[in-house]
């Protein structure tokens, strides 16, 4: 224990003693008041003195949604999609990314703060919270991380839950590999020109790169081994959204470009990149184009797609517009059957949405955020019936526990 923490603890203990004395005084005061009023042994209204306590979370269900608040109110609220009730809040500062343990035991928050709020010593770390009590379990110091509004592929966790990957940009790009079992930094992998990671079972992780390739980083040896796929996309002309989705069950990533090209990548030491198809063509429309004045249905938002692994249904937020409207929020959800490569349903969104996520159980729910005044929607992912409309539910990134 450092001197600083000891001092802090002593101070805290001192305060506690003070509080305890005040508490005793308070109890005496209550006792004195009771003596004067002599309350009946049993209150006629059934009211009893209470002891304050702290809840634990109920048993996790697949229908929980972790919804990031707004820029001004950046905490992450946990909502039960079945009841529409708030269950709790995860402390997420503005410059943080949340990741959920695939084993559901922990909630991880990679974040950056300064000792004097806007100045002082910078602190980068992963905060580890117990997913039942939401109590802080540990903090894992990091050498740095990218400071940016929350994104969903800047902090990802390996399938076995043992390793976290935290993106850093200083402005040199690297990835902090974090041992979540030993709760310490394992290594730092320099990864110039690449970002937005996906874990690769038994290998390490992959990331997208500015040269149109996917980099794969093999860990476990003395030094990381970085290999690149052949180029398969144009990073400046028709970029792949860095908020692509990951199907853990199949070991696949699904990519989407600004113009609406969808393709999969089978993850591995040597990833296999699939052929692209146009989401607009899959709906019977002309493919998206980069030309100005070519108004079409285009994908857009900050978390614009979600994949239901068992059914292979990809849900994409689509809006009407020209090219370079990649952050425009969705007016419709397009459901793409990835097996047949057809858009099987187009669903108008009440208001609009910039973020979408789908639960992975057999009765999946869709969560949407981005509506006016932070209104979040919960829909049945099969019938698209609206289940909940949650005022001030959340405005940003949505995270879900995976599996049933």
């Amino acid at each position, binding site marked *: 224990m450092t001197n600083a923490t000891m001092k802090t603890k002593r101070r805290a203990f001192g305060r506690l003693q003070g509080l305890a004395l005040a508490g005793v005084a308070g109890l005496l005061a209550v006792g004195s008041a009771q003596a004067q009023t002599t309350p009946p042994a049993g209150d006629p209204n059934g009211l009893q003195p209470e002891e304050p306590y702290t809840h634990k979370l109920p048993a996790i269900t697949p229908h929980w949604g972790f919804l990031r608040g707004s820029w001004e109110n950046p905490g992450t609220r946990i909502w039960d999609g079945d009841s529409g009730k708030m269950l709790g809040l995860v402390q997420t500062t503005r410059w943080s990314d949340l990741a959920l343990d695939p084993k559901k035991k922990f909630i991880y928050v990679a974040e950056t703060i300064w000792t004097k709020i*806007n100045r002082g010593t910078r602190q980068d770390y992963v905060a580890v919270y117990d997913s039942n009590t939401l109590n802080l379990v540990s903090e894992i110091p990091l050498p740095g991380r990218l*400071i940016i509004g929350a994104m969903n592929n800047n902090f990802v966790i390996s399938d076995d839950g043992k390793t976290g990957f935290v993106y850093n*940009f200083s402005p040199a790009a690297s990835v902090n590999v974090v041992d979540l079992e030993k709760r310490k930094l394992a290594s730092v992998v320099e990864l*110039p020109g690449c*970002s937005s990671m996906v874990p690769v079972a038994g290998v390490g992780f992959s990331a997208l790169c500015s*040269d149109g390739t996917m980099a794969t980083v093999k860990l476990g040896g003395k030094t990381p081994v970085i290999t690149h796929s052949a180029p398969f996309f144009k*990073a*400046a002309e028709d970029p792949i959204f*860095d908020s692509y989705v990951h199907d853990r069950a199949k070991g696949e990533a699904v990519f989407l470009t600004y113009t609406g090209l969808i393709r999969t990548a089978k993850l591995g030491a040597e990833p296999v990149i699939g052929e692209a198809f146009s989401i607009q063509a899959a709906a019977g429309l002309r493919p998206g184009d980069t030309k100005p004045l070519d108004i079409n249905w285009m994908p857009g938002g900050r978390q614009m797609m979600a994949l239901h692994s068992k059914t292979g249904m990809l849900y994409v937020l689509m809006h009407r517009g020209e090219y370079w409207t990649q952050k425009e929020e969705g007016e419709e959800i397009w459901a793409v059957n990835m097996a047949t490569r057809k858009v099987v349903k187009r669903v108008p969104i009440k208001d609009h949405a910039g973020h979408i996520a789908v639960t992975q159980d057999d009765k999946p729910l869709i969560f949407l955020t981005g509506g006016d005044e932070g209104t979040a929607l919960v829909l049945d992912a099969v019938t698209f019936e609206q289940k909940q409309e949650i005022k001030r539910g959340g405005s940003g990134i949505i995270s879900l526990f995976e599996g049933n």
Partner: protein
Amino acid sequence: MSRFNMDALGEKLLRSFAGNSSRRSFLTKLGAVIVAAPVFPLLPVSRANAAGKDRTPEAKTAFARNAQTKDDKKCDYWRYCAIDGSLCSCCGGGVSSCPAGTEPSPVSWVGTCINPDNNKAYLIAYRDCCGKAGCGQCGCDNTDRETQLYMPQLNNNVIWCFGTSSMEYHCSTAVLVGEAQ
């Protein structure tokens, strides 16, 4: 204004950088970026032709067709074609200057915007002003030629308060760097 000149632009950016930075750790990190240059497109030079040469409405983005040059407190001001954040001109600063008590970032990412008055393309450095909580005024998010995080120099989400005494983001400016073509 002179035509686009790679050397002059490089000098201008370096002068600006030298004038604003003295932090060895930051320079070391920047060195790592330069060393890692093979996968890092040369910038902002590589953006010089990004807006193309055709200035007909059919060749302009929706933003460029509707941009104005009079009011730098509005999101459709021509230089803001790819800005994301609070406009410093609404926060006590200006289109290329920081509000009192904040510090301009010595590095930035670069957009290419078309001035509707002369139909010329200009390189715009979106420098953040740093050191205080978010200004919260005039929030804009324009996305012309804005790409994703693996090209951070063309991504408008990254906080560019590197090399400043505090990385807290306050607002964004749009500094005219030079004519693109």
